[in-house]
Structure formats: structure tokens, C-alpha cells
């Protein structure tokens, strides 16, 4: 044995290798999966009926697999050959179910402290207070679940599952019902918590946006089996792969080169043509340097006569109006942005209000999700 070797940190890896028949509206599927989840987020992605919740139930001990093995940190929770099946309440696996399942007769504070019975009263108080602060719900402590909002309930359910320091965490679509700002602040709090605790977090979703936002590792489940596993951009399908048939709908189609991938944001940067224009577009399964086509509808573009500030759109490109053309009640403006020409559709009123004309300096605003990506 090596002298002076640092003590090995306890492995918090979650290993799952199970089979289970499970019923579903279209008959029955066989869940048959084998994967490892390390500390951090692992996203289970798949359509409803793909077996995601059944899988979580098996890991939590709320459903029995037909056979296989489930282990966390090297300890078997379920092992069919060894006839081992640890009861759900002895597994120490945190589980936030889709319906949250807050106890209606208890306050938010009592809900959070519910699983702390094994600790002393002092310890219970300290731990509750810390987790309530970490999830910013201290002010809700004395309210019942029926008296707080959906986002707040989500926080209470997460805090309740985390406060007992589970060895792994299962989250079944915990963000499904939330608006985007609430989502990202909750994910932020969860990430901060996990930086200190480092446990595997299995995060179920059927929303591809969440997959890109959470990054890390993705497992794609379909019909009970794992069809892909890897980083989001490696395994996710192109969100909108446009076919040639759809090209006619786009007034602006550019050849583009992928310059950079931003997995954390679910976007990538593309260079248009050989010009200087760079667009932030939705992330697709592509490598840096690969070539594709970007389509933008003229009606999805905005024009501004001053450089806009405080705008959610990621792309604001300076340009000059080449010419204006009236088609019925639409004004089609041709705008040159450093060698790349955009067609922008405006109303007559907008042209008059902005006093647009040839040669006028403008800014073209392109929303990331107005950029449609096509294979070459």
C-alpha cells in the first residue's frame, strides 16, 4: 500500500443496471437500462411514457425492478442475485416527485424538518434554518403549502429532500410548472447546494431547453431503453432541422460556419458567409467549424434607428438601408450589415415613424430562436 496516499473520498457514484416491465397507455414496455451517474447533474431526457418515472421509482425503492442491481456509493440498494432489496425509507435517496407531495397539514418549515427526526432538536433547528436560507424560503416557514405559490412549493419540496443530506437526489420534472426566471434561480440555488455536497442528481425532463441549460451529462430514454448518452450537444437532436420544403418560407438564408458552442446557454455562435457578421443561434448537434445554413424570416427581424439597450435579443447588428420596397401593406427593407444583406419586413407606419430611407444607418435585431438551422 502506498504511504502518504490521500484518503480516498467516498465514491458517491450511482450505478443502475435494471430491467422492469412497466405498463403504459400503449400496452407495456420493458425498462432495460444500465448507466452510472457521477456527482453532479445527469439529465434523464425522454418523452412521457419512456419510463423515466418508473426508473426513478426503482432507484428510490418505491417500485421493485424485475432484476438487476442498484448501488449508490458502492453500497447495494437492490441486487437481485444477492436477494438484496433495501426498503425505500432506509435508502437515503432524496426524491422530489412531479406533484411535489408537500404534506398539507404541516407548515413549510415542518415539511422541511420532516425527515430530520434522527437528529437532536438543536441539530434539526440548525439544519432547517440553513436549508431555508439556502433556498430563500425562510419567510414561508409558518405557511402551509396551500398558502404559497407554485415556485415556492417547488423550493420547499427541494429543501425538504436535501436537508437530510441524501446520498443521491432524484428530481422528476421539478421545473415543469415554472416560468423561466423562477427556473433559472432555482437551478442556481440547486447548483450552489451541490457544489458543497457533491451527490449524483438525476434530473428528469422532457424539455430540451432544460437539457441545454443544465449541461453536464444527458441520458436519452426512449421506450424503456437508453438510446443516447453524452454531452447535450452530442446527443440532442437538432432542435429544428428545416427541410428544403420549408426554405421557401425564409426570406433570409445564409451559409454559415459554427464558430463556438455555448452548451450552458443552449446556443452557439455562427459566422454568416465569409463576412464579419456573427449570429448567436440555438445549439444543435454540430462541431465547431462545421457548415450549415441559417434561415430567418423577414417578419421576425426588428429595425432600430438607435443602438438598442436592455434588449433580450442576443444579436444586434449595425447596418445601412440599401433600399425600401413597398409590397401591398408591407415595406421590405434591404439592409447591408458588413457585407451580409438582410431583408426586413416592416409596416408602413413603422417606416414613417422611424423616417426610414435609403442610406440610413440602422440596427438589425435578431432573436436567437428566430434563427432556423438547416443542414447543408
Amino acid at each position: 500500500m502506498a504511504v502518504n496516499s490521500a484518503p480516498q473520498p467516498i465514491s458517491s457514484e450511482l450505478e443502475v443496471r435494471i430491467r422492469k416491465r412497466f405498463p403504459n397507455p400503449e400496452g407495456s414496455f420493458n425498462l432495460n437500462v444500465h448507466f452510472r451517474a457521477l456527482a453532479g447533474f445527469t439529465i434523464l431526457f425522454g418523452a412521457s411514457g419512456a419510463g423515466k418515472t418508473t426508473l426513478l421509482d426503482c432507484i428510490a425503492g418505491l417500485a421493485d425492478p424485475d432484476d438487476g442491481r442498484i448501488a449508490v456509493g458502492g453500497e447495494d440498494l437492490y441486487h437481485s442475485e444477492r436477494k438484496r432489496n433495501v426498503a425505500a425509507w432506509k435508502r437515503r435517496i432524496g426524491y422530489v416527485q412531479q406533484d411535489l407531495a408537500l404534506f398539507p397539514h404541516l407548515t413549510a418549515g415542518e415539511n422541511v424538518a420532516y425527515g430530520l427526526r434522527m437528529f437532536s432538536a438543536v441539530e434539526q433547528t440548525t439544519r432547517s434554518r440553513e436549508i431555508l436560507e439556502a433556498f430563500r424560503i425562510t419567510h414561508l416557514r409558518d405557511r402551509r403549502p396551500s398558502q404559497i405559490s407554485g415556485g415556492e412549493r417547488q423550493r420547499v419540496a427541494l429543501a425538504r429532500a436535501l436537508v437530510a443530506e441524501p446520498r443521491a437526489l432524484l428530481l422528476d420534472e421539478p421545473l415543469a410548472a415554472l416560468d423561466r426566471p423562477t427556473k433559472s434561480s432555482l437551478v442556481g440555488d440547486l447548483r450552489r447546494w451541490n457544489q458543497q455536497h457533491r451527490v449524483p442528481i438525476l434530473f428528469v425532463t422532457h424539455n430540451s431547453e432544460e437539457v441545454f441549460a443544465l449541461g453536464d451529462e444527458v441520458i436519452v430514454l426512449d421506450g424503456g431503453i437508453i438510446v443516447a448518452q453524452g454531452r447535450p450537444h452530442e446527443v440532442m437532436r437538432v432542435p429544428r432541422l428545416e427541410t428544403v420544403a420549408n426554405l421557401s418560407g425564409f426570406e433570409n438564408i445564409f451559409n454559415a460556419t459554427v464558430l463556438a458552442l455555448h452548451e450552458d446557454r443552449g446556443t452557439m455562435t455562427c459566422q454568416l458567409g465569409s463576412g464579419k457578421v456573427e449570429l448567436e443561434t440555438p445549439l444543435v448537434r454540430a462541431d465547431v467549424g462545421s457548415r450549415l445554413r441559417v434561415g430567418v424570416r423577414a417578419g421576425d427581424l426588428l429595425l432600430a434607428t438607435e443602438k438598442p439597450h436592455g434588449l433580450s435579443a442576443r444579436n444586434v447588428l449595425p447596418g445601412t438601408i440599401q433600399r425600401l420596397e413597398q409590397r401591398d401593406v408591407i415595406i421590405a427593407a434591404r439592409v447591408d450589415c458588413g457585407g451580409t444583406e438582410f431583408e426586413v419586413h416592416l409596416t408602413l407606419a413603422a417606416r414613417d415613424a422611424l423616417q426610414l430611407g435609403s442610406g440610413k444607418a440602422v440596427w438589425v435585431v435578431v432573436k436567437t430562436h428566430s434563427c432556423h438551422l438547416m443542414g447543408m
Partner: protein
Amino acid sequence: MNWEAFWLTVRLAAIVSALLIAIGIPIAYWLTYSRWRWKFLVEAAVALPIVLPPTVLGFYVLLALGSRSPLGRWWESLTGHTLAFTFEGLVIGSLLYSLPFAVQPFAASFGAVDPSLLRASASLGQSPLQTFRRIVLPLSKAGLVTGFALSFAHTLGEFGVVLMVGGNIPGVTRTISIDIYDQVQTANYSSANQTALLLLIVSFVVLSIVYGMSRRPWAVGPWR
């Protein structure tokens, strides 16, 4: 107005419904959560007193309590007298007679607790019994009150079983409904009327409490 019979009946009903809380909760727990395939037989047996003529039930209880049955002999060797025609015998008969009136509301309210709450409790490290005590029981308050009140009211008015098992011994087994019967038999209508009216009022009040309580959405919470 026979106050002796009245208080004897109230004492009987109170003892029986209190015992039924203790006996009925485990039975209802088992009926709610057991996955035994023959469970329906137990359910049917528990519900039997609802449809069985009280005299039939009383007859069998009398046989079971009598000195020819093992139970009766055992009790006799223990206490020196038989259970039949005693207050204790009356309690046993009434327990069986009112059992479904306690167990069914209990089981219905246990079964109405959202199973995902039980799953959540398990994943928070609580054993099934802890979960039952901390989640199921508090959320079943209405069912517990209903079961208690129904078995109380039901015992209050029982006649057939009492007559079969207890006979008609003043101060020991003569309950209020038997007293009314006696008074009618002796054409003492005004006294029978008073007692009957009292029983009517008490029963109505008890049932009003039950329905008044179950109207509130206790499952969601009395705080609303």
C-alpha cells in the same frame, strides 16, 4: 324517565366507541394497505353486522360467551362467572355490532390520503408506521371523528343484540332502548315518549356533528 338505564347506555356507548378506536384503527390500516388476495373476505366479515339481523348476531355472541364455548369457559375459569348477561358481555356484543361503523369510515379516510404523500414520507426516511402516525392519522381526522361518533350513536340505540346477550337486568344490562320497550309493554306511554325523545335528540346531535365535520375539507385542511 329511567336515568339509570340512560347513564348505563351512555357508559356502554362511550366504552365501546373508545375501544373501537383502538381496535378499528389497526383493522382499518390492514384493510387499507394489505395486498392479500383474500382481503375481501375480511372486508365482508367486518361489514356483516350492517346487514345481519341483530338477533342473529346476538345469538351467536351469546353462544360464544356461554359456558359451553371455549371463550366462555376461559372467562369463567378466570372470573368465576359467565360473560352472558353481564355488562362485559354487552360490551363484547356491542363491539362486534358497531365494528363496521368505526372501521369503514377509518379505512375510507386512510385510503383517501394521497399515496404520493406516503411515498414522499418513505423517501424522507420514515418507516411505514411513522408515516402512518405522522401523515395518515392527522389527515384522517374527519374519518376518525365520524367513526367514533357513528359507533357511539349506533351503540346507543342497539336493541336486539343487547336483549340476546345481556337480557334485561336493571343497572347491569338494561339499556335505554330496552327500557322504552318495557315501558311500552306496560302501557306507560308518556315515560316511553320522554325517553324516546331524548334518544332521538342525542342521536340527531351526534349525527349533526358528524356531517358538520365532514363537510369541511379536512383532507385539504381545516385552516382554509
